């Protein structure tokens, strides 16, 4: 969306800027093999999740609060496959296929709900998946969790491997979002977000587009968490916890929902902040995160990406804040 409003020269500048950044990221593993690489890989994972939320929440306006169900699906499908000696790429393929099936099954009924009901419906969805995972102990390990096979290379190579894979998937997801945004699909989604009834009346097949958004976001997320599971070599039912999802939401909002680059920016800022806080404040770190969330929502309702927009003015922000009050 930002890109559409620039003229060609500005566009060229942005492309050069982005290429430099991408090149930078590609080259980092040559200099750093340890902590920074892992930190960035984790940041990419969060960014992908935010991007997934972006499609369904930012663009379509449907807020799922139970998307962790797909975290679980991704992690467990990959884990269960690999424990049964399926190779990693094939496991990811299984993951995509099964995720699409799950998304279809639950999507049909869920997408008929609106607003807060949709949010709660997704929580039920997550709850059901979680309880099923916990109780079918023979298959999923239940409370015991699953240990994935370890890659027999040295640490640095493993880090680099996952760094590139996650970066690659992030690139894929971002490009998909960019294309979607410019495509009729993106237009339809934005119409749905603004006023679904009007959109339907004007002939847009809202169900079809919502389902596309839902499935796409599900696949983004489950694949990235599947990769994450392999990287961590251990998963258990704590993957269904809501906190990482909330963090991704915060990243999305802080960065700027409904934009292509918003989630990435948000992921970068929040992850960095998180790391700084975590390392140095052992008590109350959740509380601090809460305070940051509150401050961001109150004072920067459109996200930090607003600062990049051409028409940025503090007065506009003030106007936005005033609109939200009572």
């Amino acid at each position, binding site marked *: 969306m930002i890109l559409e409003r620039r003229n060609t020269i500005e566009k060229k500048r942005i492309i050069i800027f982005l290429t430099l950044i991408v090149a930078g990221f590609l080259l980092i593993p040559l200099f750093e093999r340890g902590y920074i690489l892992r930190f960035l890989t984790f940041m990419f994972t969060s960014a992908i999740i935010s991007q997934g939320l972006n499609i369904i929440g930012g663009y379509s306006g449907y807020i799922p609060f139970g998307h962790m169900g797909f975290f679980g699906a991704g992690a467990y499908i990959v884990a269960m496959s690999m424990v049964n000696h399926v190779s990693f790429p094939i496991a990811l393929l299984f993951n995509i296929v099964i995720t699409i099936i799950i998304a279809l099954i639950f999507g049909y009924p869920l997408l008929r709900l609106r607003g807060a009901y949709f*949010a709660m*419906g997704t929580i039920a969805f997550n709850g059901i998946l979680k309880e099923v995972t916990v109780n079918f102990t023979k298959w999923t390990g239940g409370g015991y969790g699953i240990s994935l096979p370890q890659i027999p290379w040295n640490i640095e190579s493993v880090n680099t491997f996952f760094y590139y894979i996650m970066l690659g998937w992030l690139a894929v997801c971002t490009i998909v979002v960019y294309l979607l945004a410019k495509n009729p699909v993106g237009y339809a989604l934005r119409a749905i977000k603004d006023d679904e009834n009007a959109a339907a009346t004007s002939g847009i097949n809202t169900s079809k587009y919502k389902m596309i958004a839902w499935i796409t976001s599900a696949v983004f997320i489950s694949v990235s968490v599947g990769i994450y599971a392999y990287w961590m070599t251990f998963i258990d039912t704590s993957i269904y916890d809501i906190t990482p999802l*909330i963090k991704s*939401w915060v990243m999305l909002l802080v960065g700027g929902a409904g934009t292509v680059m918003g989630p990435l920016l948000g992921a970068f800022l929040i992850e960095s902040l998180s790391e700084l806080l975590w390392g140095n404040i052992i008590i109350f770190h959740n509380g601090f995160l809460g305070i940051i969330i509150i401050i961001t*929502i109150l004072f920067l309702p459109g996200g930090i990406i607003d600062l990049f927009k051409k028409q940025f003015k503090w007065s506009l922000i003030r106007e936005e804040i005033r609109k939200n009050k009572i």
Partner: protein
Amino acid sequence: MLQVIINAVLLGSVYGVMSEGFSLMWGVMHILNLAAGTLIVVGAYLSYIFMMLLPNVNPYFTIPLVFFISFSIGVVIQKFLYNKMVKGGLRRVLLLTFGLNLVITDILLFVFKANYLQMNVNYTILQFKGLYIPSHRIIIFVISWVLFLLTFLLFTKTKTGLIIRATAFNTEAAEICGVKTARTYIITTGIAIALGGVAGSMAGTIFSFSPAEGAVFLAKCFVICVIGGLGNVTGTMIGGLIYALAEGVGGWIFGTQWQSCIGFLLLYIVLLLKPEGILTKKN
């Protein structure tokens, strides 16, 4: 089996009152208060403090105090925080309430540490044809329904209640009639948190609580409010009963490890078939 049902009904009534606050805030202001669970636990802690300070007073008598303090907390939160974002859209509201929840949970953790506390009340067990009913569960059952009745009367018979309902129904029309929306919201949240806080105190006499328990209560609120109907006072109360019964009876029939799953399934089914709640009329 009858025992299971009775226990579920007794417990479900407390669940109902607990969820009323959440339901109210949604129905009137479209705020999904993710901090509700933790605020319920705050009620329990308040009761506990009173129990420590006034050891000779029966915990039940401190309930009005808890009500008053929780009400004030609700007022402060709405006035200084939620009112600033109430028109900002679901996303922002949810995150705001979540942020608040994090802060309150950490404050509780800091002050009270992570110990599990519980308030002890003396009770006798009434026996009737092989069924056991402890008196303290009956007392909180009664208190729950009294609170429900008072809330119901508040909303149907008093001026304040009518104002709140009018605002919920049509904010602009109400404002034209001279209603100050901001102030109405503040009172609504006050009542909502107060109900939650008292429910917390009551719950604290039958099981133990800690700062993290808020999440458990919040999860139950969600399910119960959807079943009963967000914003529907009677519905939410009945929803509490239905939820407790589904868990108890479901657990009895299918095995207790499925107890929580049944709760979620119920939520899911209700959302699919009648999202506005079992008892709400479609408008």
